[in-house]
Every structure is written in C-alpha cells, then in structure tokens.
C-alpha cells in the first residue's frame, strides 16, 4: 500500500489535486475517494440514512408488517410498542383509524423518494439544456432566458401548486411536474454560471484554437465540467423537494389522502398532537432524517468536488 494508507487517522487529508495522491488506476482513485469519505463522519451517517430510506422504499412489501391502508378500529390509537399499553405487533403504534404507523412510514418513503428523484431529474434536465443555451449562446438569448427564469423564480410557487392541483387534480405526477418546472430555474442559473466560466477558460480557448467544433466543445469540454456542481445542487434540491412534498401533503395539495405519504400522516396526526403525539411524531422524524441525510451527502459532495473548499476544512 502507499504511504497514505499508513497515515494516522487524524493526519492531514490527502489532496485530490496533488500529483502524488491519485496517480494510477481507477480503483486506486476510488479507494482514495473512499478514504476521504470515511474521514467525514457526517457523510457516512448521511449515506447510511439515505440507503435505509431507499431500502425501505424498494422492499416495502417485504419489511412492512401490515397493509398500510387497512383500517382496524379495534386496535386504533395504539401507542408504540415500548409504551405500557403498546403491543409489539404495532411497533410505532397505530393512528386514529387503526392503521399501522410503521408500515405507513415505510410505504410513505416511496412517495417522498419518487417526488425527490424524478422532480430533480426533470428540473436538472430542463435546467441543464436551458442553462447551456443561455450560457453558451449569450447575448440576447441569454437575456431572454434569464428574464423568464427570474419571472418563474418570482412566482409564489404555492399559488402555482394550488392552481395546478385545482385544475388537474391531486396526483403524484402533477406534484413531480410542478416541482420539476418550478425548480428548474435554480439549475438554469447554476448551469449558466458554470458554462460562462468554462467558456472563457483557457482550455476552451485552446480547444477553439485547434479548430474544435462547437458540439465538441459542448460535449467534451463543458459537460464533464458541469457534472460536479450540478450533482451537488441536485442533492440539496432533492432534499428540499422531499421537504416541500411533505408540506404540500400536509396542506392537502399533494397526493390524495388515501395514499400513505409522510405529509398526509403528519396532517392526520395534527388534531391528536396533545393526546396521541406519536401519530405526528414518527412521520415528522422520517422527514427530518431523510432531508438531513441528503444535506449531509450534499455537503460532502461539495467538499470533494471543490478542492478549494476541501483544503479549508480541518
């Protein structure tokens, strides 16, 4: 192994940019990024939490204990298993209609992750294409696009959501589309800024000077340099979308109340906050932890992808 592996854990963080640290094969470089990862305990925690949520969403059928929709008034308002009146059959208790909270939280992760994932994909896709046009073409195209972007950013998105929900009804697809469109301006701005920076960089100038075609400059020189910043923004935006989706559900503007989603559960528990606090607490904890995990991961990504910031950290 290299000398870096022998360093004490508290030693200086090796630099990606230093010529000695990442020369060699892809597997060596991956191992190096892995080392950076283990040094950041927040990132490890974030990844663990995030994987847990993804696991729950993927294998909801297998790990849930009850049908999340099944009402059973005989066992309604059960406290969590560890409380004196609780039964371990319902580990996190039941709601006022006797539905198992644990199973509902498991299934609720599907709504949150679907909205976050596809919302970000749509927003990033739109933002990337539009931002590239704005940044690369510049001039009037840029001015027009940025005006539209600023108008969209200025629109109160809640109003937008109420409108769409009122006209097209409440569905997961609508929420995803709304988030994808209203969040695209953030990606447009980031992409445009990066493209402007990259386009005036020395290496694009030298690529032009050896006769590279515009398409080549866009795909070979600009796109690879966009991945880092966009990935970081995407993580934070996904976290924000999960948060906002819960908010919309709470307001009754997202998925129909029949679908188990964390926001819906929160809303259902609102009236029992004083008497049956667990009904609202557990979905709330799920929202916070999921959002936190994405933010921790995003922080780490930003540090790794931006060497200047990484150097400043202890």
């Amino acid at each position, binding site marked *: 192994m290299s000398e870096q592996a022998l360093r004490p854990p508290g030693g200086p963080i090796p630099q990606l940019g230093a010529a000695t640290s990442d020369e060699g094969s892809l597997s060596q470089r991956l191992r190096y990024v892995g080392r950076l990862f283990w040094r950041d305990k927040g990132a490890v925690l974030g990844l663990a939490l995030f994987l847990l949520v993804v696991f729950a969403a993927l294998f909801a059928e297998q790990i849930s204990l009850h049908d999340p929709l099944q009402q059973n008034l005989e066992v309604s308002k059960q406290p969590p298993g560890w409380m004196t009146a609780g039964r371990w059959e319902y580990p996190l208790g039941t709601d006022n209609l006797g539905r198992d909270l644990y199973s509902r939280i498991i299934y609720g992760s599907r709504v949150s992750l679907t909205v976050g994932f596809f919302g970000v994909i749509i927003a990033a896709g739109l933002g990337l294409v539009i931002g590239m046009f704005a940044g690369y073409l510049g001039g009037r195209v840029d001015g027009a696009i940025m005006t539209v972007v600023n108008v969209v950013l200025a629109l109160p998105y809640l109003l937008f959501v109420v409108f769409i929900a009122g006209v097209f009804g409440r569905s997961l697809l609508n929420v995803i589309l709304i988030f994808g469109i209203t969040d695209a301006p953030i990606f447009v701005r980031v992409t445009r800024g990066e493209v402007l920076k990259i386009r005036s960089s020395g290496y694009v100038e030298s690529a032009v000077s*050896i006769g590279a075609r515009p398409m080549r400059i866009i795909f070979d020189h600009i796109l690879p340099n966009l991945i880092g910043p966009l990935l970081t923004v995407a993580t934070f935006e996904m976290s924000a979308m999960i948060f906002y989706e819960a908010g919309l559900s709470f307001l009754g503007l997202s998925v129909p109340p029949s679908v188990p989603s964390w926001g819906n559960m929160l809303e259902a528990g609102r009236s029992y906050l004083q008497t049956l606090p667990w009904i609202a607490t557990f979905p709330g904890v799920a929202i916070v932890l999921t959002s936190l995990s994405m933010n921790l991961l995003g922080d780490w990504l930003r540090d790794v992808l931006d060497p200047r910031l990484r150097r400043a950290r202890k």
Partner: protein
Amino acid sequence: MPPILQVKNLVTRFNTQEGVVHAVNGVSFEVAEGETLAIVGESGCGKSVSVMSLLRLIPGGSARVSGEALFTDGFKTSDLLKLPDPELRQVRGGQIGFVFQDPLSSLNPVLTIGEQIAESLREHMGLADAPARDRTIEILARVGLPDAASRYGNYPHQFSGGMRQRVMIAMAISCGPKLLIADEPTTALDVTIQAQIVDLVLRLQKELGMAVIWITHDLGIVAGMADRVLVMYAGQVVEQALLDDLYERPQHPYTIGLLGALPRLDDVKTKRLANIKGGPPDLRAEPRHCQFAFRCPHAFERCWSEIPDSSVVGPAHTAACFYDVEKGTPRNGS
C-alpha cells in the same frame, strides 16, 4: 521566401460600456515561410489582440475586426478575416497552431492530455482512434516528454508547468501547421524552463519547416531566437527590422527607450536602469496623432497633429516616426 501571411491594415476595436477601445489601429506585417517573427511591446499594446483577431479567437463577440489577413497555404490564398466558420476551423490547428501564455489553464482538467491532442488529429486529419493515439504518443515524444506512451492517459494536474507547455506545443503542432503563433508561451515559466521551451520551438521549427510568430515583452528571448522583430506601441506597429539591425540601429524613440531599459552585462552595478517616463495612452480615445508623443523626448508640432506612417529607414527596416534620430532633425518632407 514568399510570405505565407500578409496582414494589411488590421483594426480591432472593442465596444465596451465605457466606450470604444481602440486596441489595434492599422497593423500591417508579413511573415515569410519558415521565418521567426517576434512581436514585442509592453502589456496592453495590442500584441495578443492582433494575432487573436486573425483567427477570430477573441471571445464574447464584442470585438470588431477589419482589414485583411491573407494566408497562403500551397497555391491557395485566403483572407482569414472573411473565411466562413467551418473553413476557419480547418485553419485553426490545421495550418496555424496557437500556443497560449498560461499552460496551467489551457488544458481541460477533466480530460487526459492524450485525448486533448488526439481530438485535434481526429478533427483535422480524419484519423481513427487508434492511429490518432499512436501519432499523439509520437508527438508527445517529439516535444520531449519522457515516457510518452504511459503519459498519454495522465491528467493535466499531474504535470509541471513546463511539461504542460510542452503538451500545449504538442497540441499546436500535431497537424503539422505552416505557422505557429506563440503568445508569450514562456511568461508563466521560470527561466531555465523558458530556455528549454525556446530551444524546443526552434528545433521543431527546423524539423517541420514552420514559420513562427513569437509574442513577448522579453527582449532577451527575442535576441536569442528571432529573425525579424516588430515593435508595437498602443495598437500600432512603430518599428520593424531584422534582428541585428534593430538592436544596433533602432530608429524609433520607443524602441530606443525599450533597449535602453535593458540591463547590460557590462554596466556598472550601481547604475539605475533607464525607464521611459509616463504611461501608455488611454486607448478609448481615437488616435489622432502619434501615440508615443506623450512620452517622446523628440516630439514636436507635427507629432501632435498627424499619425506617422511607417517609412522605410533602411533595408527591410521601417519606422513610424517623423523624427530622424540619427541626424537629430525631423525627417524629410516634414
């Protein structure tokens, strides 16, 4: 030798928010096949802008370029300033190679250096991936990169500044250009590396039979390599001469000032270096008189009312000045 590049009355202006900047004001020069032309002048005098205007490399679309730039390749002569984009792209990197000042930022950090050179080969010579790779390695070896084959897959940050400049040169010469334009390629490097880069370019020039335009503000480097020197001041060519002629018999007061500011081996140690008093003129004002008049020790009335044309002052030697420094009087006709 026939000229491969004839620049006539090149004018470059920038429309900025603070007004029009007159960066290049009627520059004319020629480059013969296989010759080394050095363009010297202080920062901001329009050296880089002139050559970048030729290949339309100035980004942002704020530059207005006019004039003529006839480039001869074989039997075909074309005006670079009027070429349509696809043809100009064939010239860039194909017939004319360009080396930039800062090798640290001129290479894309996310692509291997091999890919960046092979890109040009595929583009201009239509090579497939494997031959492009072979030729890239051959070129890398040629510019003095040790162990070229294993360096092909390395990223720019794994190279030192001097090595990166070698890579940049490899990129510029990869398609066997007729003309290499080097825009202060040694400014960012330390002195020993500078010498290596100069030697490398001179060797490649002989091997490939290219002409070289070398832009610099370092008269020491010019003395060691150029055939001919062109001195620029405030966007104009003030003097043009063969190397020895310029150093022995400078005719323009600005050139004389520049040469006077050089430290010499036989100087007394305590002597202060001479300087040219004053600063360069504001390029936002349209030139109406000799731009050097502000700082010229010989300036007289006419210098403030007319722009001097280049006049012949010796064999292959021109100067744009109304004053004859050898006789100590205004030139004939003034």
